[in-house]
């Protein structure tokens, strides 16, 4: 068949159809199956915060299914994660929500932000349980929306606290982040509050868009003020930013929310340069995660399987969606039902809900208007000899109890919603 305009157009249509279709894991014919939807970005700029989560859920579900499934209300269920790629597009997120709901998903997991905003009204009307990784999505009217595993970006306070305790000479900081309200500005507010709470002056905050093709001017502009600390609040561009810091011979402290694919950062800089970078997301083979008070099933085995099955794909969310899945399973077992509102009620009935890094507490009313996010302790991670390693766990809830007023002020200064 020769290449003709008609054939190429057919190819385009097929490509678009493939891109817009949901992906699903293996079907388990003949078994009672409960589907857990993931309405997430698998393509586009936000893909690193979507797709690895589906991979992680597949691993957890396979482990549960291999062990014979999960017993809920006297029935044994197999778990089937079902993904839908919304590409961080609100219209597609609505389509994804409708598709997954009509596919009988018992819960729909999402990354958060505008895509959650586009579907949460429907979820309230449909009595659908939805999880987000962004507690800032929670409002007084979103009772069906929970953030049970990640308290982004609240946990960033722990890294700053640890830095201030261990490097008391670091007294000034600059912040760089994306200029979106959902991730960048929320995170910048937390970092600004955390720095202020520890007497560290923020010299400059550079908000940039997603159209940056050269990070050297941003980094050089920020370094002109000679900061002790360079902070990447929430940035999908940590690799080029750190590369620009390396090129400038920066010798101060670096703190970041995430450091995804740090092997590639090392390849672009050096092992010595990244040594000591502080961030918030551990590798799951970390020795500190192999203790009994970590409420994630077999973190080391999960890490090994992920690295084997999905090499080079690990990111901050690789364990967070699976953590939500684990939380859903335990709540469904407590409820004896897979009905979304029964599971939600069981989740909320526990005042000390299980959290990946130990038990936590329901929180959020004082900031977002509803206690629907779980805060607990969170790890502070540093780069040590080319690996991400936990140096300490710190309590996010205790920090919020002490510094909520500062955080509220910083959020309001940036025009962010608080109660």
């Amino acid at each position: 068949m020769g290449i003709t305009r008609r054939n190429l157009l057919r190819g385009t249509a097929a490509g678009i159809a493939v891109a817009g279709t949901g992906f699903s894991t293996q079907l388990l014919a003949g078994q009672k199956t409960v589907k857990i939807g993931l309405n997430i970005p698998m393509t586009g700029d936000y893909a690193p915060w979507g797709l690895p989560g589906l991979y992680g859920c597949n691993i957890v579900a396979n482990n549960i299914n291999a062990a014979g499934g999960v017993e809920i209300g006297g029935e044994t269920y197999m778990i089937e994660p079902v993904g839908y790629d919304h590409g961080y597009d609100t219209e597609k997120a609505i389509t994804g929500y409708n598709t997954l709901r009509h596919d009988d998903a018992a819960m729909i997991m999402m990354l958060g932000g505008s895509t959650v905003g586009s579907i949460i009204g429907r979820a309230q009307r449909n009595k659908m349980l939805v999880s987000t990784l962004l507690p800032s999505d929670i409002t007084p009217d979103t009772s069906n929306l929970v953030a049970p595993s990640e308290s982004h970006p609240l946990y960033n306070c722990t890294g700053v606290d640890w830095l201030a305790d261990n490097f008391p000479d670091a007294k000034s900081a600059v912040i760089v982040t994306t200029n979106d309200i959902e991730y960048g500005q929320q995170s910048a507010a937390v970092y600004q509050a955390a720095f202020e709470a520890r007497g560290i002056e923020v010299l400059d905050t550079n908000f940039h868009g997603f159209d940056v093709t050269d990070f050297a001017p941003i980094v050089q502009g920020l370094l002109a003020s000679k900061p002790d600390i360079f902070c990447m609040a929430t940035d999908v561009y940590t690799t080029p930013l750190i590369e620009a810091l390396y090129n400038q011979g920066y010798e101060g402290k670096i703190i970041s929310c995430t450091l995804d694919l740090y092997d590639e950062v090392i390849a672009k800089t050096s092992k010595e340069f990244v040594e000591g970078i502080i961030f918030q997301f551990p590798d799951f083979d970390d020795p500190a995660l192999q203790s009994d008070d970590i409420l994630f099933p077999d973190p080391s085995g999960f890490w090994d399987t992920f690295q084997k099955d999905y090499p080079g794909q690990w990111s901050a969310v690789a364990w967070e969606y699976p953590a939500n899945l684990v939380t859903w399973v335990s709540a469904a077992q407590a409820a004896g039902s897979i009905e979304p509102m029964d599971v939600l009620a069981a989740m909320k009935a526990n005042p000390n809900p299980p959290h990946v890094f130990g038990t936590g507490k329901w929180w959020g009313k004082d900031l977002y208007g509803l206690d629907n996010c779980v805060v607990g302790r969170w790890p502070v991670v540093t780069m040590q000899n080319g690996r991400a390693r936990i140096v300490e766990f710190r309590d996010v809830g205790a920090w919020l109890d002490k510094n909520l007023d500062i955080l509220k002020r910083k959020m309001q200064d940036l025009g962010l919603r608080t109660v």
Partner: protein
Amino acid sequence: MELFLQSIVNSLIQGGFFALWAVGLVLIFGVMGVVNFAHGELVMVGAYTVWLLHAQNDVPFLIAIPVAIIIAMMIGLVMERFLFRPNRTDPLAGLICSIGVLFILQVIAHEVGGTGPAKQVAPPFNQIVEIGESLRIPMQRLFSLGVAIASLGVLWFFLTKTKLGWALRAVALDREASALQGININRISMIAIGVGAAMAGLAGALMAPLQNITPHMGHNVIITAFIVTIVGGVGSLSGAVAAAFIYAAFHTFVTAYFNGTVATICGLLIMVVVLIIKPTGIMGVKVSE
């Protein structure tokens, strides 16, 4: 002073990239009358090729670059022969076809590289050139600037000093008159898109070690290329090059001294101001009906 000097260097490097993006777009538009929306994806193809060959399969960077150029050029030639040429009398059809190619190339990139995190290429030249006590320029960026300027120089020589270049410019000025002079329009169109796509492939190959590589990286490229093209004067190659360096300098300085968001807003304002004051762009000429 240190920041000022660094910003000048950054402006030149960015300007080199912007010029490579824009001249290809201008060349294709000038000769063929087609707004090639897939031009950014040709840049992406160049970057992906370097990632695939150099980062994944250890092919030397200096070999990966010409391969990237050839692949981008081949895609361009296929587009001309099978999409743009049959629709030469209908510019809208050409535009829609280029949007189709844009999607196809993105899907292919997804298939080749997977849908996960952005791809990275470690810089093959990782030395830092230090000038005085304050100026630090990575060799990779200097290399990119040098290749970009050399390529633009070769293009200038080709367009102004060779018969083929004259023919190409003649077709851009008046296609029918050129045909009457015996110039083979099909052949010139193939050369125009081949050169334009090669420039895009080269830009992508040079950018690969300097930024995140994703199937969607062409979006930023095409938007910037359009701004530069409009500011320079649609159809004017020298205008596009001048506008590329002016826009890069403006964007770099505003980013360094204010922030990235303000730079983006101001960059678009430049375009609006130019359109109000001189709708033909800084080096464009008004064509009478």
